[in-house]
């Protein structure tokens, strides 16, 4: 397409010419001479290409190798996950089992030591002393006894303190008298026998007991029914690392 020049030919105005322009007019002087290859313009490109290729190929190859090895270890990985999940489940179940076993200690420790106390008390009564009554629960006991004199009842206190199930520091007498009513006591622990005129009312507490302590206690009292239960339970406790 021929450009339309609206400027008349006889005009003095100069037409724009690319070669004469300020911007492009001098470009001819800078034109390249000779082939592009000869002038080694490719060198930066080659260096850049090589740099990119080398810095890429190293991680690329290692990455492929890692991926290959990972795919080979997938089975072990799934086994590992399975094993850890099973161990976690087994440990949780085991912990629950241990807690259940420890809970069973209440079966033994919450019981009042009725038989061991009665057994040991029978062996601790001085010959001149008569036991009128006793009451016990899982933690405390009290008893009423009659004797010919104070000394025989003091012997009873000493023997009570020496009993294996009794806390010796807790044993104390609430009264000890020929006539408790003379002391202002309303206690019914009063002897009717002229041969055993002195009465005493004693109180005490039992020692805190672990299943292991109870095993010894029932064994010493020849209560083999309870002893065998405790022995089985304590061996189980020992296997799970004690009652802590």
């Amino acid at each position: 397409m021929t450009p339309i020049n609206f400027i008349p030919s006889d005009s003095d105005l100069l037409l724009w010419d690319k070669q004469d322009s300020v911007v492009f007019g001098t470009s001819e002087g800078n034109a390249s001479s000779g082939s592009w290859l000869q002038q080694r313009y490719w060198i930066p490109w080659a260096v850049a290409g090589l740099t990119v290729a080398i810095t890429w190929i190293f991680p690329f190859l290692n990455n492929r190798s890692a991926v290959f090895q990972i795919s080979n270890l997938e089975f072990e990985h799934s086994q590992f996950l399975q094993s850890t999940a099973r161990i976690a489940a087994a440990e949780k179940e085991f912990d629950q089992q241990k807690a259940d076993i420890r809970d069973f200690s209440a079966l033994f420790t919450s019981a009042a030591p009725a038989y061991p106390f009665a057994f040991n008390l029978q062996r601790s009564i001085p010959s001149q002393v008569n036991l009128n009554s006793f009451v016990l629960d899982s933690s405390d006991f009290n008893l009423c006894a009659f004797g010919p004199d104070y000394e025989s009842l003091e012997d009873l206190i000493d023997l009570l303190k020496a009993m294996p199930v009794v806390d010796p520091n807790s044993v104390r007498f609430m009264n000890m008298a020929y006539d408790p009513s003379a002391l202002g006591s309303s206690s019914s622990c009063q002897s009717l026998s002229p041969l055993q005129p002195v009465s005493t009312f004693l109180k005490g507490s039992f020692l805190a007991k672990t299943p292991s302590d109870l095993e010894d206690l029932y064994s010493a009292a020849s209560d083999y029914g309870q002893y065998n239960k405790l022995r089985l339970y304590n061996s189980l406790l020992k296997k799970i690392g004690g009652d802590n």
Partner: protein
Amino acid sequence: MASIMKNLRDAIDKLKQIDVGRELGKLKDINVEDLKNISLSDLRDKADPMLLSVVGSVLLVGAGLYGLILPEWRSWGVNSQTLQQYRSEAEELPLLRATLKNLQKQQEEIGDGFDVVRNFVSAESIELFTSKFFSETSRRSNVRLLGVNPMRVGEPFTCIQPDQADLLFDESLSPDFPPDPDQMDEAAPPDELPSPEAPLVSDLSRVFKVNRFQLSLRGNYLNVMDYLRYLNQYQQTLSPVCLEVFSTPIPPSPDAVSGVGGNPEPRYVGEVNVKLIVDVPQREASEP
């Protein structure tokens, strides 16, 4: 502050000195046609080819770094970490298998033992055969079982009264027991009764369903001891909560009192009255 104001004033002065007309006049030298006809080949011809090559290669490196190299290194880093983890897992696997086996063996062994201990507490309803425990034991130990009555859970009862010096058999707790004719002949029961009744909460009830029974017994003290011992010989645990033992003084015979012969004083040797409260634990479905 003053120096800042001075600088500001100087800057404003400099702005005032700018000749806007002269600066705009410079634009007249630019030929609009030059700008219209610029093409890329013109720029190439105009620019230094070596410079273009260097700039291009730098751009290439940049693009390669961003598009290829960095993602590949990043991916390699992630994969090498994964590989390291998988390798260590593979090394640990035999140990884990041994641990699991050991744990299962231990659990099985303890489970067997626990099954025995677990049977100390029945899972079945025990009301039906509980009385058998008590009656059989009384026959075996030659102790008279005067009565058994079940107690409601949480029902208050007296055992040891902390502030009382009395050791009285609380008859109010066994209203259903038939009156014992032998007892009527013996010493009169004490007229003082422990007044406050406190509920006794057992640790057992925290773990098990607890069935509580109150027993009234009479017999020789040594036989009563046997009774307590024989109760422990059942596989089912029978846990004593409270034991009250009272001797029953035998009053002197009329002959002895009148001085015809014998000892005129009451004798304390002989039978004892016993109140025994026993917890019989029972496993429920949710319990161990």
